[in-house]
Every structure is written in structure tokens, then in C-alpha cells.
């Protein structure tokens, strides 16, 4: 009788039956008919706040005219988007047809939960649309167990943003190694006490992705098989370096909860000399309405550490179809259009870096990018590592575990014992995650 009364058991049995029935119902076939007309249907698309979204919204009337389908957009900020998916996909709701999601964060979880429709047949069928045109790294991130479940739309790499004027005034070259970066941060801060040498994400979970470049460049990694690797000497060095860089060269009280908007704000207001973050966000730095230092922003490849320059190069966002959608044919039609060569080219021209090789090779596509940035993107792309966080199923929890020592390092606490604790917790987590 340890499970309580019979009424409880009856309810539980009933709910399990519902779960089993719905799982059985959805594993029949993909439900996508490439030849069917989508005219008159409504495609419900959930998108994140992003330059990509703003751009696609302007293009959607073209799609509606071409196909006769209607597109309904729900647009949300990242956290709200995750919460929405957690509720709606979890409940098996069919009110989302197309979803924009973060492959690194959610691909494994969503695919493993059976939330995403299998698109393998579709992506391989259309030679003109050309799945092989997508860069291998990003494409691998939207694949799960050999099934393609998403199409990458935005890629990004760590780039080093710097203040040209401050560097020039200090008589310094653009740093090419992490050692030089720290020396430059120190020198600039000493010459300008109000300016922080370096600013970066500090939030436990938020900092993980940007810290990854420091970790890899020091020769470290998150884990090796089922063993945590964050206790290695290389990883320890990386944690200490990142903490020092943010803590030491500033007079301001460091906000311990910064994600990119807060960290960027410090840089935009001219209060920091360097920040390494995603290159896809560069418009926030070069747009004069947001940034007081728009004219003085420089871009550089990620500096070399003891193990070389190893920024991440990842698919930040992708499109997928909700397995429960009743309108998969039209949903696929929309994805195919939104990720086509033509749309991707238009996106690139507006500063959104995609995953298509042909677009990156097209000189007209990137005319709008600052030249220095384009150069940095190329170099970073070659050196890039295909993930910026531990690639596990339960990513949020993993991020909090490996992020803990970052917070301690920035606060100037006992990093080594924080790493020891995180290392043990992470190994335990990995065993559980693989279950």
C-alpha cells in the first residue's frame, strides 16, 4: 500500500493510459505530404526576439502570397519562450506548428521527449533546397539519434569586441593571446580608472557559454565520456583566468547576475575596454542608437590560450515542427521557405549569420558586415568548437553546476574548492543524465 489509496492509483493508471495512447497515436508516420497544397491553412509559428525574427516578419507577406497560407506569429523573449515550450509541448498541445528553439540547449531534451517531428525524409528529398549546403557542425546539432529534427537558421561564434580608441591611447596592439588580453585590460584600466579592463557575463548559467571559449583555449573541456573534466588543471586555470579578468581590472561593483544585455550595456556606455561574446549580437555594439561607442568598436578573433584559439562555432537557433501539429505539411513548407538559399541570402545581407555554406561564400551576402568582423568570423569559424555548453539532455542543470566556479572566481572566493565540489557534482549529474 505504499502508493496510497486505490483512488490515487486509479487516477494514476488513467493518466498513464492517456500518455500511452497519445504516444502510440503519434508514432505512425511523419504526416508531411510534399505535394499537398497548403492554400488556406494557417501556420502558427513561435519565434524568439531576434534580428532574424524581425527580418522574417518583413518577408512573410511574400510567402503568404506565394502559397496562399496564412502565418500567425507569437514572439517571445528567450526565457518566456522556454517556459512556453515547457508548458505547451509538455502538454502535447497542437497550437504550435513551427517552433524556433536553441539546439544546444534544447535539441536533446525535446527530441528525446518526442516533441519534434522527424524531418529526415523531407530535408533529403529536396535537392534544390539542399540540406548538404548547411554547415556540418550546426547541422549535427539539430540531429538526434540519426534523425534530422530541426533546421539551423542562425550561427554564432565568440568574437572579441574591443575599444579602438582606448587601445590606441594606451599604445597597444589588438591582443592575440589571452596573456596579452589581460595585460591590455590591466593597462587600460590603470590609465582610465573609470573604465573596466574587461566586462563579461557573470550570471551562473549565462556565463557558461562565453566562458567556454576560455575553457577550450586553455585546453580544457566540460566532460570526457561520463567523467567530469572541469577538475583538470587546464580547466582550473581557465576558471581562475576568467574570474581574474572580470574582477581585478575594474573599480565598479561587479553585478553577479549579468547576461549579455547587462554586460553589453556596460560596454555600450563606454565603461569597458573588452568583451568576448557572440558575434551574432554585433549590431548592439555598432548601432549608434544603442551604443555610445558605436564608432570605436573593433572586432578580433578570440585570443590564443595555451591550447590555441578555440572559440565556439555553433547553431544558436533552429526551426522545428511540433510533433503534435496537425498542420505539418504547411509547417514544413514554411521552414523550407524560411531556410531557403534566397531567404538566407537576404538574411545575411541584413547581418544575420546563417548556416549555409553557399551564403558564406557569396561576396554580395556579407557586404554589410564590418570588414574586421567578417575577417574575425572567418578565423573563428575555422578554429571553432561545435558546442558552447555541455551537450547533455538536462542542459539547464548542467550549466548551473559548471557555472558555479565561475561565480566564485569572479567574486574572488576559494575557486579550487568550488571546482572540486562542482567536479564531483557534475560527474554525478552525468551518470544521472545518461539514464
Amino acid at each position, binding site marked *: 500500500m505504499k*502508493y496510497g489509496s486505490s483512488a490515487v492509483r486509479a487516477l494514476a493508471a488513467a493518466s498513464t493510459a492517456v*500518455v500511452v495512447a497519445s504516444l502510440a497515436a503519434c508514432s505512425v508516420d511523419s504526416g508531411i505530404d510534399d505535394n499537398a497544397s497548403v492554400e488556406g491553412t494557417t501556420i502558427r509559428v513561435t519565434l524568439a526576439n531576434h534580428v532574424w525574427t524581425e527580418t522574417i516578419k518583413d518577408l512573410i507577406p511574400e510567402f503568404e502570397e506565394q502559397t496562399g497560407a496564412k502565418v500567425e506569429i507569437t514572439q517571445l523573449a528567450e526565457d518566456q519562450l522556454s517556459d512556453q515550450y515547457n508548458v505547451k*509541448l509538455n502538454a502535447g498541445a497542437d497550437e504550435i506548428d513551427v517552433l524556433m528553439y536553441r539546439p544546444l540547449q534544447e535539441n536533446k*531534451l525535446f527530441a528525446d*521527449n518526442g516533441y519534434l517531428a522527424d524531418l529526415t525524409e523531407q530535408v533529403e528529398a529536396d535537392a534544390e533546397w539542399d540540406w548538404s549546403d548547411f554547415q556540418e557542425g550546426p547541422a549535427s546539432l539539430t540531429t538526434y539519434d540519426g534523425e534530422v529534427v530541426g533546421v539551423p537558421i542562425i550561427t554564432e561564434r565568440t568574437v572579441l569586441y574591443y575599444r579602438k580608441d582606448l587601445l590606441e591611447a594606451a599604445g597597444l596592439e589588438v591582443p592575440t593571446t589571452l596573456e596579452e588580453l589581460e595585460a591590455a585590460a590591466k593597462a587600460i584600466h590603470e590609465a582610465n580608472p573609470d573604465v573596466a579592463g574587461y566586462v563579461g557575463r557573470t550570471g551562473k*548559467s549565462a556565463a557558461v557559454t562565453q566562458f567556454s571559449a576560455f575553457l577550450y583555449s586553455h585546453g580544457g573541456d566540460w566532460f570526457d565520456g561520463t567523467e567530469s573534466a572541469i577538475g583538470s588543471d587546464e580547466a582550473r586555470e581557465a576558471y581562475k583566468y576568467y574570474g581574474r579578468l572580470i574582477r581585478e581590472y575594474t573599480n565598479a561593483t561587479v553585478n*553577479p547576475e549579468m547576461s549579455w544585455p547587462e554586460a553589453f550595456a556596460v560596454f555600450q556606455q563606454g565603461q569597458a575596454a573588452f568583451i568576448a561574446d557572440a558575434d551574432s549580437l554585433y549590431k548592439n555594439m555598432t548601432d549608434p542608437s544603442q551604443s555610445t561607442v558605436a564608432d570605436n568598436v573593433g572586432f578580433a578573433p578570440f585570443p590564443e590560450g595555451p591550447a590555441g584559439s578555440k572559440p565556439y562555432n555553433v547553431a544558436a537557433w533552429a526551426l522545428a515542427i511540433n510533433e503534435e501539429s496537425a498542420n505539418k505539411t504547411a509547417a514544413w513548407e514554411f521552414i523550407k521557405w524560411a531556410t531557403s538559399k534566397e531567404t538566407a541570402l537576404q538574411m545575411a545581407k541584413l547581418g544575420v549569420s546563417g548556416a549555409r555554406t553557399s551564403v558564406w561564400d557569396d561576396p554580395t551576402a556579407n557586404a554589410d558586415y564590418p570588414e574586421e568582423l567578417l575577417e574575425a568570423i572567418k578565423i573563428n569559424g575555422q578554429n571553432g568548437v561545435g558546442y558552447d555548453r555541455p551537450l547533455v539532455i*538536462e542542459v539547464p542543470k548542467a550549466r548551473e553546476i559548471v557555472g558555479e566556479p565561475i561565480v566564485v572566481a569572479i567574486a574572488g572566493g576559494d575557486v579550487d574548492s568550488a571546482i572540486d565540489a562542482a567536479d564531483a557534482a557534475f560527474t554525478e549529474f552525468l551518470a544521472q543524465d545518461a539514464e
Partner: protein
Amino acid sequence: MTAVQNRAELPARERLSRWANKHRKWLFAGPSMAFVALLLVVPLAWTLILSLTDSRRSVRRDFDFIGFENYLEALTDTERFWPSVGRTFAFTGGALFFELVLGMIIALLLWKPFRGQGVVRTIVLLPLVATPVAVGMMWRLLFEPNIGFVNEMLSWFGIPAQPWLADPSTSLATLTFVDIWQWTPMVALILLAGLTSLSDEPQEAARIDGANAWQRFWYVTVPLMRPVIIAAVLLRGIDALKTFDILYATKGKGGGAFNDVETLNVYAYGLSFDYNEYGLASAVLILFFLMILAVIWVLQMQRKAKS
């Protein structure tokens, strides 16, 4: 003859109305009972069931009943669960104490009519109508350690800048202050309503007996106000225990980098929406629910003991 026949075979409408009349207490209460059952009992029962399972990642996945393992895990967790319990009660206790004291002072000041009473009452009540999330955002800006207005103001008096929300040792106290700022008006409003309904005679009698203002307040007003005060404590206390919005709006997921403002509610939210551990999250919520019930029970006993 026809009358007798009619009585034996009453028309259906008549019979229905008689039946309805006889059972009217059930009929009238029925809809609201069904409503309560649907909106309260069903989710609660579902949470209870989930709390006994190992459901994680998606509630549509298969899960097994694991008995009270989740409860055991929560109750033996000294890293997140118990500190959250401590913070929940510290936050509620601190906020409630100051809200009652300040609320009573404000209510006493507003009790006797004076010129411009309407304007003053409106101003005092303003924080109450602001949306908690907006309030959280506003105070987050004001308490920003580098550019915030609060530190700017302190510097006028030569007081060094404080980290406020940015430091784990001060963030919970800072947020307790924000809660006091926002909810004192509501407590004042309830207490003022209580004060206005008091009759003047006991006060007058006490005055004739030579009681001073403090004695009149402590020995006459407070005992008479007891039911109102308990009602205010009950309302505000339960609300404060459940606080989520200002904590989440100012410190985000997990109650900040060091979980420094993570109360039970924030913790359960994180378990459910970040970690997707529905079983454990449900167990924490059930424990939380039991704690609130216990608090209500203690307060109710208090009320009964005195009346």
C-alpha cells in the same frame, strides 16, 4: 375528485420544483462546489500523484511510482531545500512584522479626519496598485550598485555605496524592504477599516479613567482590533509566503548567483521549469502547501482561543 387526482400525479414541473426546494442548499452550493473541485482539487490531486513519481523531462514520458523518495530527497537536502525554507520564513516574518507596525502607525495617523485626507490616503495607497514585476524592475534600477539612485543619494550624506541586491548577504533584506514598501498600504487599509468600525465608548471610558495615549492604544485598541489584526496577518502572511514576482524579477532564476533569495516558490519553479524534475518539484510544492496549512492552522487556533 380532480383535485385529489392532481395531487397524486403532479405535473413534472411541479415535482421538480418541489425536489429543488427540498435540496436547495445543495443546488445553490453545487456550482461553486464543482468549481472548487475542478480548479483546486484536481490540480492538487495531480500534484500529489506526480510527487510520488519519478516524472522528469516531460510529463508525457513514462514514469514510475517511487513512493516517498522525492519527499525524502527534499527533506534531506540541506543545500537548496532547507535554506529555501529558512529564506521563505525569514522573508515572510521580516516583511510581516514591519508591515504590521508601519501599517498600524499609518492607520492610526489616517484614522482621525483631517484636511486633505483623500489626497494623503491615495498617495499612501499608490504602491499597492503597482504591478509587482514593474515594482521589481523599478527597485532593481534604484538599487543598481554603480548607477542606481539609492547609492547616489547615500553619497550626498557621505555614506559609501552599498551593493544592495548584488551581494548575497544583503539581497534578501533589500527585497524584504521592497515587499514592505509595496504591501504596507494594504495592511494599513485593512487596519484602518478595523479602526473605523470601533465604537468610541471604550476609548472614552479609558480616557475618563486616566489612561494615556499609549495605554489606550495597547490596552483598548489592540485587544479590540485583534480579529482584524489576525485577518491582516493571515492575508498578508500567506501572500508573503508565496511571493514570487519581485524575487524573480530582480534576481532571476534560482534566486540569484548564490541562490541568495531562493524561497520555496522560486525553488519549486526552478525545479519544474529549469530542471524539468516534475516529481521532485511536486513534492516540494506539497511540502510547501503543508507548511502554509500549518501556519493557517496555528493562526486559526489563536483566533479561536481568544474568542
